[in-house]
């Protein structure tokens, strides 16, 4: 049930704006499934049942992929460069955004879509930076999909020639399966997580364009070998680019900024 208006949402995603407690939009339709009443289990036992195979040969994620392509077309038409940020919960996605956005803002308009199962906490942190932000609450859903992003786009004041960050739901497993229409995927891992993570969750690292190792300020206190982690990540994806940063101390953020600038120029 929706905690704002009490309507039944059945786990459907909800859009919220930070600081506007009453505002919310239910994203329905595609994520939703309509059950049809069963009307086929009665009085036909006297008929000869004939079995027939129907070929489909359809990609299961086709619907998401088609919607993602629509989003991508929209972004390209407006020259909006989109980065999809993926990580386990707590690796530092929001903190990295808090640090990089003030650095980028003087050069290019920035906006953010925040994905979390619950709360507008992350969107409030971004709003404090003075950039447009919208929160998608996925409820029981553990990833953003292209339909949710499409809904969010309608509510977000995006300008042409800008940069959009999408912070996905903290989850290293399935957000990698769902194309949102982004230009590039950035996977974030922190030094408190274990350097074999790329081998344990290969799909995410396989799909990503850039891996950011965060919280390097904690390296003296943890058993984490950045070289080994990088090697593991490259085994999964030999095209993966690699940066090491501390969102806390700011170390390495300049390199990330340069990486973004280079990608913006290549558009």
């Amino acid at each position, binding site marked *: 049930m929706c905690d704002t208006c009490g309507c039944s949402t059945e786990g459907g995603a909800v859009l919220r704006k930070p600081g506007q407690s009453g505002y919310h939009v239910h994203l329905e339709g595609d994520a939703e*499934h309509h059950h049809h009443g069963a009307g086929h289990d009665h009085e036909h036992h006297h008929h000869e049942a*004939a079995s027939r195979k129907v*070929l*489909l040969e*359809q990609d299961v994620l086709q619907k998401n992929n088609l919607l993602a392509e629509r989003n991508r077309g929209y972004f390209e038409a407006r020259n909006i460069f989109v980065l999809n940020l993926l990580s386990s919960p707590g690796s530092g996605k929001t903190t990295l955004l808090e640090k990089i956005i003030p650095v980028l803002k003087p050069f290019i308009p920035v906006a953010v879509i925040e994905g979390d199962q619950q709360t507008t906490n992350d969107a409030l942190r971004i709003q404090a930076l003075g950039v447009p932000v919208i929160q998608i609450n996925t409820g029981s859903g553990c990833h953003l999909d292209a339909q949710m992003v499409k809904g969010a786009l309608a509510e977000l004041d995006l300008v042409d020639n800008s940069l959009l960050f999408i912070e996905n739901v903290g989850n290293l497993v399935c957000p990698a399966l769902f194309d949102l229409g982004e230009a590039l995927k950035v996977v974030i891992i922190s030094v408190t997580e274990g350097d074999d993570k790329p081998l344990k969750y290969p799909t995410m690292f*396989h799909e990503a364009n850039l891996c950011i190792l965060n919280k390097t300020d904690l390296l003296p206190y943890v058993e984490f070998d950045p070289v080994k982690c990088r090697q593991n990540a490259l*085994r999964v994806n030999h095209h993966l680019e690699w940066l090491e940063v501390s969102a806390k101390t700011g170390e390495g953020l300049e390199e990330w900024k340069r990486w973004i600038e280079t990608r913006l120029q290549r558009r």
Partner: protein
Amino acid sequence: MHEMSIALSIIEAIEAKAAGEGPGRVSEVELLVGRLAGIETESLSFCFEAAAKGTIAEGARLAIEEPQGVGLCSECATSFPVSFYYAECPACRSLRVQIVSGEEFKIKSFTIEEEGK
């Protein structure tokens, strides 16, 4: 649990296609789920059963074919089975390996038991 949303989208695709097929119920669904596709087939079967309740596919059997991962070395063109993305070419030890099979995730077909014939 993305297997649930995936199960729902499978049912949706079947319903859309079945709508043009006349009355009947679906008794079997054939899926192709590559070993590298990132899908837990056990969890998917479980979710499918729940998602199918009250739909045309209620009680349908899921037949899942799980093709092996196959890598192709970009250096020496050897092709070999891989069980993960971090494959190394067994011939030349190169890590420049392209995945050529194992990422499939498709609905191949479904079987309709016709009614009223």
